[in-house]
């Protein structure tokens, strides 16, 4: 059953407590991996002047992927949003945006385009208005 805004706040769905992500850190815990390197490992300590070098960012989170997912899903549940209910505020942003737009905006081939390669790499639809098919 869907609740209205007052009921959601009252039922605590929007206000339950969730620790900050860096408070969940456990030393040595890690959720990122890369493929094995196929080039020699550079010695950063030697290449970078000693006074400018640092080996790691102090305080950065050390959490598992599963913890990150739960954390941000919980945070999301503390928000009220257009997709959870009517929001009669905000002339500029509070309209429904079709999900197909989101899907197209995330199209990986378009997302991967670098700003400084386009103009000199052919063919290129946005430099040729007739190719866009946007005008009758």
């Amino acid at each position, binding site marked *: 059953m869907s609740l209205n805004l007052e009921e959601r706040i009252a039922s605590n769905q*929007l*206000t339950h*407590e969730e620790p*900050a992500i860096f408070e969940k850190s456990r030393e040595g815990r*890690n*959720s*990122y991996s*890369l493929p094995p*390197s*196929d*080039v*020699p490992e*550079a010695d*950063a300590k030697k*290449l*970078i002047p000693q*006074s*400018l*070098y*640092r*080996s*790691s*960012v*102090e305080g*950065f*989170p050390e*959490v598992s992927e599963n913890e*990150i*997912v739960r954390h941000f899903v*919980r*945070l*999301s549940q*503390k*928000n009220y*949003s257009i997709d*959870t209910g009517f*929001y009669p505020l905000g002339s500029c*942003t*509070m309209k429904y945006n*079709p*999900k*197909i737009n*989101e899907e*197209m905006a*995330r*199209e990986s*081939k*378009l997302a*991967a385009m*670098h*700003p*400084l*390669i386009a103009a*000199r*790499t052919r*063919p*290129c*639809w946005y430099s040729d208005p007739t190719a866009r098919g946007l*005008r*009758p």
Partner: protein
Amino acid sequence: MKYIPQGPRDREALLKVVGLSSEDELFKFIPPHLKVKGALPYPKAQSEIEIRKTFQDFCALSPQPKMSFAGAGIYHHDVPSIVPFLQGRSEFATSYTPYQPEISQGTLQAIFEFQTLVCQLTECELSNASLYDGATSLAEAALMALRVKKKAEGKILISQGLHPFYVGVLRTYLQNFSDRIEIVPLKGDQTDLDLLAAGIKSGADLVITQSPNIFGVIENYEAVGSLIQGSETLWATATPEPLAWGVLRGPGAFGAHFVTAEGASFGAAPYLAGASYGLFATKSEYIRNLPGRLVGETVDEVGRRSYTLTFATREQFIRRDKATSNICTNQNLNMLAGLIHMTTLGKQGFSLLAQRNLSLAEYAKSTISSASGSFKISKSATFNEFCVELPCDAGKLVRQAAAEGFVCGVDMGRFDKAWSNRLLVCTTELNTKQQIDELAAFLRRSA
């Protein structure tokens, strides 16, 4: 998806509420000669099947290089799968600006966490909730420096190592403040510290530097910091590639007053540099002059920890001439993706990724140098990007590589004619040894 989903019954009900019998009656106040007859000259609305087809056609027309070494301000990185999944949650993607903290604790806590991570990265005390991008963050820092110095106009020194596009944005932002802007030339591929020292001595209000700079070279911030120390001059820094902070100290550690960076490396794709966010960090003492949005920790009426917007001195809230910035917002959804990406990298992954970027660039430097004696690569320390001096025009090589279906780097002649024989090459974790070998072979063959 249909924008107008109402059926005849809905229309009848709506008309009944306003007491009308037909749609024509609703528009009867428009004189007939002003009414548009027939359809407007726009393409017909497309169904989802047609929209997908349209975008597939765009993709087919767009360059799809088989490999790329382009950086120069926008760096292509791997984005972990969980980033779009979590960022795309409706409660994040469709929530309103968090003015009502009771119903925005998710967004507010995420901003608070982002601010904390930015402070750790930059080694600064205070971060805002993000600005539009790296270049506008830097321009806001320049405006803020003038506010801190209580000056309507000031003398600003910009290192020639700053990205020329950033210089353009600065000039646009500052043009109505009648500031004097002077460029401090480089000595080789680094800021000339003697000229910088002279500028500071002659009473500059603000110094702006970038590291790694436009040549990819790591600037000596320890030396810049000691020049600034004890002077009246403020110091703002730009970092288009903040992943470098995985192996470099944050500029805050050397006394920078304002530390700004481009966010695209975390959570975003290159997107033709269109969808991004900017990092902005500074000293706590300047909190009342901070542009944009700031989230602080507090307690609610029953004593539970909660978060809220604070120090809101933007023009939306107070008189325009007293406002610290005309930016009342932040790039929240892009910032959120950046937060999730940085959290996923975590302490170990961030260092690992920075180290990998550095190793690939070092391999590329040595492979390209040994490909031909006529390629010159400076011995200066770099991160994941470096400059190759060629015996020919770099633009020619970029065009030739494009014809062969890849991007060999960025022609620096597009920034300055004096640099037209320089190719800026960037390697990230998305490049492989094989690609770098191919690039070196191409350069040997074509230059």
